[in-house]
């Protein structure tokens, strides 16, 4: 239980709680990047340098930016008129507390968990690259295929329909100033 672990875990948990409770969605995304940064620090502490920097690159660099774009495109930065939590939030929190209790009781009652960390040499980026190019080359190709499919699929899903575009354009012309303000 080192000092750095305590500091990083407080950072992670406070960032996650803030991201889940704030009303302004942009602030939520910013708090989330705090959590991701703390997790990257934990990975660095656990001798997984490559994953730590990949976490910074992918989550803080890409996913957080994507989230901010989605929030701004859906006008999520405006504060909601009604409560940010659904009506049955008590049940949701209760389920989460029960899940945490079950996992924590299993962690504390388990007798197979190893106690101390063995002295291992950290895997270099060269080793990871070698493994990706020899033993794990097929999963790597499948992952590349998945990412390509997700890229194309995301663009196609978010693309505007032609008919929808025409109707919205015609409605833009007819009701110029407040065409986007409300539509049932």
């Amino acid at each position: 239980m080192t000092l750095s672990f305590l500091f990083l875990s407080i950072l992670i948990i406070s960032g996650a709680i803030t991201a889940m409770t704030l009303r302004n969605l942009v602030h939520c995304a910013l708090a989330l990047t705090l959590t991701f940064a703390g997790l990257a620090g934990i990975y660095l502490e656990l001798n997984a340098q490559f994953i730590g920097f990949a976490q910074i690159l992918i989550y803080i660099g890409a996913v957080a930016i994507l989230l901010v774009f989605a929030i701004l495109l859906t006008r999520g930065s405006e504060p909601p008129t009604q409560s940010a939590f659904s009506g049955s939030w008590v049940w949701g929190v209760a389920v989460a507390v029960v899940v945490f209790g079950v996992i924590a009781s299993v962690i504390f009652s388990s007798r197979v968990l190893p106690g101390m960390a063995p002295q291992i040499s950290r895997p270099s980026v060269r080793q990871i690259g070698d493994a990706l190019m020899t033993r794990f080359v097929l999963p790597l190709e499948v992952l590349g295929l998945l990412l390509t499919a997700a890229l194309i699929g995301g663009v196609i899903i978010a693309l505007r329909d032609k008919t929808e575009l025409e109707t919205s354009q015609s409605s833009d012309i007819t009701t110029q100033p407040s065409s986007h303000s409300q539509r049932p």
Partner: protein
Amino acid sequence: MTPLQGYLLLSALLFAIGLAGALTRRNAIIVLIGIELMLNAANLNFIAFWRYNPNPEASTGPLFVLFSLGVAASEAAVGLALVIAVYRHYRTTSVDKMDTLKG
């Protein structure tokens, strides 16, 4: 409490917070953020178990997390595209109001 238990507890707490957010928030983007938090908790478990394994194989833990990161990134991209498409149709991202199929 051993160090591994500390990491596992942190991961369980992160998972529970993500689950609570995904179950209670109204905005679909925040629900996706909660799912991302749960995926991150799983990644932390992978790395912690790999680090404290008594006879670790060279780099299986980081490789597993690398593939998991790729899947999580594509999930986020497609999920946010879906949210934008739904917003274009309903003019809202509140999951309570997307109830067209509700009987």
